[in-house]
């Protein structure tokens, strides 16, 4: 396949790619109506067919879940059911204006409220809001609730520190910073759990009084369930702090255990992970949050409620609200998908999600244990974190090289170098929607690659060799920054 051309290179002045609406109102003089006009507008001009060819051929060099196995750790690349796309496309959902009178969209509010209620039940929290637009946005919203909570006790100025484990995802400290908090890192112990001594130290005495809260990922980014979770929550609470759960790993827990029961005060969810709204190449995400009653007063506006009689209403009279965190009701059409997904499983089958996600991850871990040992010798949850340290040490082969070589074998690589605390980390999250044969084929490929690493390491260094391009020069990309088509 030849290198694809830029859409601008395909452009010819005067071509059109669609039949835009005609206009039957009188002409106007644009200058006198609008004022200063622009000089030119360099957008592509191509026919409909050439448009479709461009994007069709580019899709052929884009790896998606429907192309093959995509075990990107921490991202829960599960199957995105096609029925969800059909329901989200219904004109009665897709054609709603967010500022049309609320009374004209009862079906939409019913759906939103139902999603909230199902998520409350699944997470063990008393309220959920769907306003956050992605995981990180949800984290930030949770921290804002925590901030407002402390402020309501007059402790806003005092509690300025957020504790974040060293294994946390980058969005955790970044979200804390976005809320004006300083971040204190909490180490992970040898066994892969939160270091309770260090935590106790951070919560002790004066230090403890400055702590706004702890951001804990459970299961952790090591793919391990935090067995001391109840104790940890108690410790933080005792010091007056709040505990936030990074719920990116909720796929390990759906129907099996509930963060609300663990002692967390609030959590975020990535509906685009756990509840299968499609990742879309990097979004839209969908970041619901769950919280307990004491944080409810601070919920972002507007709040969608259900009254005793079952009807759904919009509560905008929220004097203690942190305010809006996004323009409207969240990623509505993604909520339609999540709703469809939840109703397809139902109470009967919902636990199958976490049970098979965990089964698959443990299976991969077991199959690979001789070539790529797990960072911790414990049952993993929905994902396993392995280390390629030996290959780096002995053969100069890095985790990234193994990943790139996997592309040649037709697989999307796992996550690399995360969590940061595991050297040469390879984080594999198979998800529940993968069949045993797929896992076997993937493990077989890894085992083969590990053999290649030993005998023909250059195969890995030069990988991938089967794609439209070989390994790309990221340093050059930064140094000779080219982020828009300069030939325009």
């Amino acid at each position, binding site marked *: 396949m030849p290198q694809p051309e830029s859409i601008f290179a395909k452009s010819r002045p005067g071509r059109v790619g669609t039949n835009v609406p005609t206009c039957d109102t009188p002409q106007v003089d644009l200058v006198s109506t609008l004022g200063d006009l622009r000089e030119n507008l360099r*957008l592509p001009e191509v026919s409909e067919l050439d448009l479709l060819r461009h994007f069709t051929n580019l899709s052929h060099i884009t790896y998606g879940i429907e192309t093959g196995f995509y075990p990107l750790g921490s991202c829960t690349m599960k199957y995105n059911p096609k029925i969800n796309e059909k*329901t989200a496309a219904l004109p009665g959902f897709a054609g709603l204006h967010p500022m049309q009178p609320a009374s004209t969209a009862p079906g939409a509010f019913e759906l939103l409220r139902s999603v909230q209620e199902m998520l409350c039940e699944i997470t063990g929290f008393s309220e959920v809001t769907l306003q956050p637009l992605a995981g990180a946005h949800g984290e930030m919203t949770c921290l804002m609730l925590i901030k407002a909570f402390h402020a309501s006790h007059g402790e806003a100025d005092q509690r300025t520190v957020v504790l974040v484990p060293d294994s946390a995802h980058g969005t955790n400290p970044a979200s804390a910073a976005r809320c004006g908090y300083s971040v204190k890192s909490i180490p992970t112990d040898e066994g892969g759990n939160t270091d309770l001594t260090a935590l106790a130290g951070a919560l002790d005495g004066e230090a403890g009084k400055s702590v706004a809260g702890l951001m804990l990922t459970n299961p952790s980014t090591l793919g391990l369930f935090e067995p001391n979770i109840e104790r940890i929550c108690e410790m933080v609470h005792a010091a007056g702090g709040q505990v936030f759960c990074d719920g990116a790993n909720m796929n390990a827990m759906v129907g099996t255990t509930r963060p609300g029961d663990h002692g967390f005060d609030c959590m975020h969810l990535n509906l685009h992970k756990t509840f299968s709204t499609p990742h879309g190449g*990097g979004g839209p995400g969908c970041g619901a949050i769950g919280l307990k009653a004491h944080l409810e007063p601070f919920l972002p506006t507007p709040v969608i409620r259900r009254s005793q009689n079952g009807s759904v209403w919009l509560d905008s009279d929220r004097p203690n609200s942190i305010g809006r965190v996004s323009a409207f009701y969240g990623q509505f059409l993604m909520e339609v998908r999540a709703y469809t997904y939840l109703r397809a499983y139902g109470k009967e089958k919902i636990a199958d999600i976490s049970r098979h996600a965990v089964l698959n991850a443990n299976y991969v871990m077991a199959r690979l244990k001789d070539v790529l040992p797990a960072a911790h010798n414990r049952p993993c949850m929905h994902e396993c974190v392995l280390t390629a340290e030996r290959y780096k040490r002995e053969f100069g082969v890095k985790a990234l090289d193994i990943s790139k070589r996997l592309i040649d074998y037709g697989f999307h690589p796992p996550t690399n170098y995360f969590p940061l605390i595991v050297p040469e980390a390879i984080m594999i999250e198979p998800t529940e929607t993968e069949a045993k044969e797929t896992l076997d084929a993937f493990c077989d490929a890894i085992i083969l690659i590990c053999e290649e690493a030993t005998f023909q390491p250059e195969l890995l260094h030069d990988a991938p060799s089967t794609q439209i391009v070989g390994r790309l020069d990221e340093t050059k990309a930064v140094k000779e920054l080219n982020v828009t088509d300069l030939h325009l």
Partner: protein
Amino acid sequence: MPYIPHTDADRAEMLALIGVDSIDDLFREIPPNLLLKPGELNIPSALDESRLFAHLRELSLKNISVNDVTCFLGAGIYDRFIPATVGAVISRGEYLTSYTPYQPEASQGYLQTIYEFQTMIAELYGMEVANASMYDASTAMAEAAIMAIGIVKRDRVAVSSAVHPHYREVLQTYAWALGLEVVTIDAHDGKTLDFSLVQDCACVIVQSPNFFGTIESLSLARQAATDHGALLVVVSDPISNALLKPPGAYGADIVVGEGQPMGIAMGFGGPLLGLFACKKEYVRQIPGRIVGKTTELHGDREGYVMTLRTREQDIRREKATSNICTNQALMALAATVYMTALGKNGLQQIATSSVRNAQYAIQALQSSGGKLRFRDNVFCEFVLDLPADAGTVRDELLKMGILAGLPLGDYYPGLSQCLLVAVTEMRTRDEIDRYAAALKKVLANLNSKPYAEARN
């Protein structure tokens, strides 16, 4: 369950290899008191695909959508033409189900579309660089303010009252969390003219066309920003940029906007598309993903990668330029297809049609008893002053199948008799005439009935 492929045989073989007896064993590290019992969750029962679709269809039919009424409601979200090709492209599984292109060699197709998106957005706004997308315009604006704070090192931002009220609310939320101050510049007669409050601010934020539809004087804003050592942040409807001199040409430092009008369903306000562009000198402060062109490490084929990654949360953590991770890639792709489909001529054509339709509507609605509230140039949206409560008029018109616009009273107490009316290329002369006729009738009724009290 068709989403989970495991057969009993699969499960048995897998458990045997793992060396445990049951799936329950794998959860043994979870304290038993935290485990749910089977079927314990109180959520509705499963529906099969056919019943599920029927159920969702029924829910959807409870709503009044733009297919059922004629839409003159805008206020940042617009009923615009969406070419069929947009859906055909973004529904392709390769795009729909991939994720952030961390492994560029396996995602060259998507990366190229993002690079093309950045190019088109930069061009549209007249800016040097654009990022891969933000969540929506409101968060993009808040991020722009925070970016300005970081660049100028002041902890206060100024925003015009003629900026979308929801965006300002979001800005306020973000600012509160960071301990920043937001000062609001009151617009006069629907336009931002007095910039004295920009003093000591890191930036001044104006929207053009603003929330009232009025085209702001960006040269005035630019001058004021420069005078006060502040950055100029402009919020701008991308469609208006097809015709208007773009913010970049006025020297804007950062331009943000809502990409929804470019090929994205209104969808009750989500998913949307935050646009973010800035001057090249600020590119290292930009939030979010950005894609760059490079070449192979050991070859000379060109390719695309995510770049300037050290700005981002996964590498820089609490020092990152933003906490954003997942953005709105698929919506950016929709906008890319849209801009490609319309191209220069198509985009200018629909923008011009919108202007013509709006001008025609201004005439028509004025002759039905409305009055244009503000006198400055508008793009395709305007404020109509009514001799009655705007909410009441809106409700009456809705009964006649017309979604008449946004009553402004909730946002601007002084404008409770005002309706914000948007007229896009989708509207026809006939529809506008019907609106005008309906308005006449409604106003006549309101004046002759007890409703008349509302006017006092």
